[in-house]
């Protein structure tokens, strides 16, 4: 049973890291702010979500598991609001400069 759980962890965490990679490359390569924002939010919720998912079997108790999900939800909330603020800042920069 633990081998399967380990396998789940390995697959999920590596997928998570892949999305992080995608997000970061997107942040560096994409031409303007809004497209970079798109890449960034992917790295946030998907990358971290998968890493948290992958760590669930490794987490000691149920409480830790719940906390892991809580971390993910909090980062989702953060990601959503920050991207809104960034979009406003970008438009303001676009309109004012």
């Amino acid at each position, binding site marked *: 049973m633990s081998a399967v759980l380990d396998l789940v962890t390995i697959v999920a965490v590596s997928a998570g890291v892949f999305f992080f*990679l995608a997000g970061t490359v997107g*942040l560096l390569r994409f031409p303007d702010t809004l497209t970079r924002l798109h890449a960034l939010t992917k790295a946030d919720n998907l990358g971290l979500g998968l890493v*948290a998912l992958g760590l669930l079997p490794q987490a000691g108790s149920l409480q*830790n598991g719940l906390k892991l999900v809580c971390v993910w939800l909090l*980062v989702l909330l953060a*990601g959503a609001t920050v991207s809104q603020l960034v979009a406003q800042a*970008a438009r303001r920069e676009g309109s*004012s400069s």
Partner: protein
Amino acid sequence: MNEFLTVMVGLILALLALGLVRVLRGPGDADRMMAAQLIGTCGIAALLIIGVIGDISAAIDVALVLALLATFAAAAFAECARRAQQPDTPPETEGP
């Protein structure tokens, strides 16, 4: 298992260093905010994995606090950037 996780943390930290490049080159405040957000998320992911490697269950609490305060710092940054751009005029009331 720990070896695999360690490699993963190494990768995440490398991505984090790359995110810093955007902070270096980031012309506007928007880029810096995004980079700070990415660095925050990478840091939280690395922290969760490190917590599992060293089996320090408190690392999850630290990750929770980090997530909360990375949001707070990003909000502070956005607010100050916005106010710096138009100090006294009331904010435009355009929709989200």
